């Protein structure tokens, strides 16, 4: 049970999500059909996300979107598929921090450096949560408890190389506390550890907690975001509580290098419109995703910053 990821080959599992809409609203996109590649298997977070994009962005850009699942090797196969594809804007990769982590840890033949960000859509907010009947009501209660009893507070995070763990290691440095950061084999295991009391605090994305949140079994204390996240009650950010930590678990689109400028422009305009689409907005707010739209220039800067902080984290904890 080392990996809860699914290693199935789903190369041929492509599905047209939506045929092209009526009249294209923007300048003609150079190709008719665009393949969106994901390393996540059908039903995974990125897969569902790309299918929603296809549904709502198709009419806006006047393009057919097809989602393809190229699973395996933490995104290495999917990255290679994009780099080896045509350079005319017909193939993109739905990117999360995973592809950068894979690039740094496994040194696959094609890495994030061979790809170029196109646009960013969302930030997947990382949250700090506790059991509903926990004595902690704010992030500072956790800090106080950890100060009163160094090593006494246990925080459940997912895998050793994950962003959850990175943020909790930073949390200790920022607050000058010492806690036990308990790593697991996957996100689900970490939630169980909080539910059964092994850990007093957990870190997770909202999607993974949704069932427990709806049942009021857990409470969210804080989010590591710039702004408050809608759809989870009025939860203050960590920064509002005096702990200056923001994690960018981005969801974006990357493509081959040197794509035609009109392709980039079409995406930037199209996605800017998409983010304001009321139906699409309803979907992503229900999913607990935060609008973090970025143009190519902004997304490039954000990626470089992310890579620098991730490298520092891996080096410090000897993860390679």
């Amino acid at each position, binding site marked *: *049970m*080392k*990996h*809860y*990821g*699914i*290693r*199935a*080959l*789903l190369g041929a*599992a492509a*599905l047209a999500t939506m045929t092209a809409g009526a009249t294209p609203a923007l300048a003609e996109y150079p190709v008719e059909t665009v393949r969106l590649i994901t390393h996540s*298997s*059908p*039903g*995974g977070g990125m*897969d*569902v996300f790309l299918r929603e994009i296809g549904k709502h962005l198709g009419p806006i850009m006047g393009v057919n979107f097809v989602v393809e*699942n190229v699973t*395996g*090797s933490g995104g*290495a*196969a999917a990255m290679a598929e994009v780099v080896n594809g045509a350079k005319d804007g017909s193939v993109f990769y739905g990117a999360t921090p995973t592809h950068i982590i894979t690039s740094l*840890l*496994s*040194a*696959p033949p094609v890495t994030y450096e061979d790809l170029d960000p196109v646009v960013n859509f969302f930030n997947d907010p990382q949250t700090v949560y506790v059991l509903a009947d926990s004595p902690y009501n704010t992030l500072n209660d956790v800090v106080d408890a950890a100060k009163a009893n160094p*090593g006494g507070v*246990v925080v459940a995070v997912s*895998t*050793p*190389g994950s962003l959850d*763990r990175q943020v909790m290691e930073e949390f200790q440095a920022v607050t000058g506390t010492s806690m*036990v950061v*308990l*790593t697991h*084999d996957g996100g*689900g*295991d970490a*939630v*169980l*550890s909080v*539910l*059964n*009391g*092994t850990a007093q605090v957990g870190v997770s994305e909202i999607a993974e907690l*949704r*069932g*427990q949140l*709806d*049942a009021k*079994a857990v409470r969210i204390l804080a989010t590591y975001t710039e702004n408050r996240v809608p759809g989870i009650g009025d939860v203050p950010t960590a920064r509002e509580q005096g702990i200056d930590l923001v994690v960018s678990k981005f969801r974006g689109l990357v493509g081959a290098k040197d794509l035609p400028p009109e392709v980039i422009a079409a995406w930037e305009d199209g996605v800017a419109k998409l983010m304001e689409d009321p139906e699409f907005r309803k979907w992503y707010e229900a999913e607990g995703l935060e609008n973090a739209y970025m143009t190519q220039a902004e997304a490039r800067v954000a990626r470089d910053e992310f890579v620098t902080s991730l490298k520092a984290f891996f080096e410090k*904890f*000897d*993860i*390679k």
Partner: protein
Amino acid sequence: MDGISYALTAVTTPSVLLAAAGGVLWGILGGALPGLSPSIAMALLLPFTFDMTPLAAIVMLTGIYIGAEYGGSIPAILIRTPGTNAAAATVIDGYAMHQQGRGGEALGLSLVAGTIAGLVGLICLVLLTAPLSALALYFTPPAYFALAIMGLSVIAALSEGSLVKGLIMGIIGLMISTIGTDPLSGVTRFTFGGAELLGGIEYIFVMLGVFAVAELMSKMAEGDDEEGITKSVARVKLPGVKKLWALRGALGIGTGVGIIEGPIPGAGGTVAAFLSYNEAKRWSKTPEQFGHGAEEGVVAPEAANNAVTSSALIPTLTFGIPGSNSMAVLLGGLLIHGIQPGPMLLSTRPDLVYGLFGGLFLSNMFMLIFGLLLLGPAVWLVNRPKPYLTASIFMIVLSGVYSINQSLFDFWVVLLSGVLGYGMKLLKFPVLPLILGVVLGYMIEANYRRSLLLTNGEHRVFFENPLSLGLLLCAGLIIGLAVVSEIRRLRHGRRATQE
């Protein structure tokens, strides 16, 4: 009762019937192909469920899971190749029965035991969802550690008469399990700088190597003589009621162990199959037959891995937390249809939950029907001339291996394990301890270290946690009994030689 009417509606809906039938059929075929694990078989069909109704989609996915857990035992019995991880325990006595010409009988036993256990598991799923889901919460790191130690203690009993050889193989298995990424810190170990070993060595490769490849090698070494092996009856023989009654002990043990292990994330069918094999051996009136074609040795693990298919659904449905790869695919299927599993599922979508229960019943019935239809051709196939058979099995095993990760590196792992397994066979080293070490090593290490991290290095925790204490005592008992019987056997042997 609303529940029953939901379930009845479901089983009489044509689309659900079709989904269950199609899922089970594909699952049996997928499970029978080495390398195609239940989770991959499910993932391959997942895109086809997008356009179905949510109920038909999840019935189909669970049908594949049920079919695959059964299908894995067909090659385990007929060609000493476990089609799935959980069928590894069936190989020992199942293949021994086949060599004695009782392959058809073994297949019948496995099918009927699997069906009965699946149905009993389903009843438990319906009646005991709440207490069984609590079970997942009782398992904290010390308890997981103790459970894995108990699994490992089975080595003492499964060493086929040589405890020292068994221990050596168990330790080699544990050593293999340390390859890969450190479970707690993420530091890489013994990967030699390459990316191939980052995820560790997958159990299925070691199993395919030491069972299937080693067997093929020794068959090739035997040469062309047509003696013995393939003279089995080309007919499947279902056990009668009398036989089942005689085997009720093994059947009960397998079903019980499977139902309890299912909801514990990470324990799963493989551990359940091994534990129940061992328990069946201990409670058997004729333990000396185990390893030489004991019917109980087929019934217990087969009942266990099919009982798991029902109870493993519990944490997925009630917490939204998948305990295994297969359940992760099922969760994906639910989410695609906009269904959020979790504590609220039963109150928000009772039609779906009870409909699924109805679908599970259908799937178990279809498993019995398709099992009967498919077993005949399967037995006919393995009765073909040996050279053809050996060559084609080799091809199927290796293409199955390649299909898992599309990596040539995996070939070397399987072939090297095959050489190791062949060597073990020649030197009469038992195989099961090695497998147990590989399967349980990671669970033992990760949870031992997690426990100590939680207590700041105090080993007391393993004795203070009641669940952990109980499991460790059981492990002690298993080892103690095995050592006593080993000593007795040696004394007896000495006396016999003196006389």
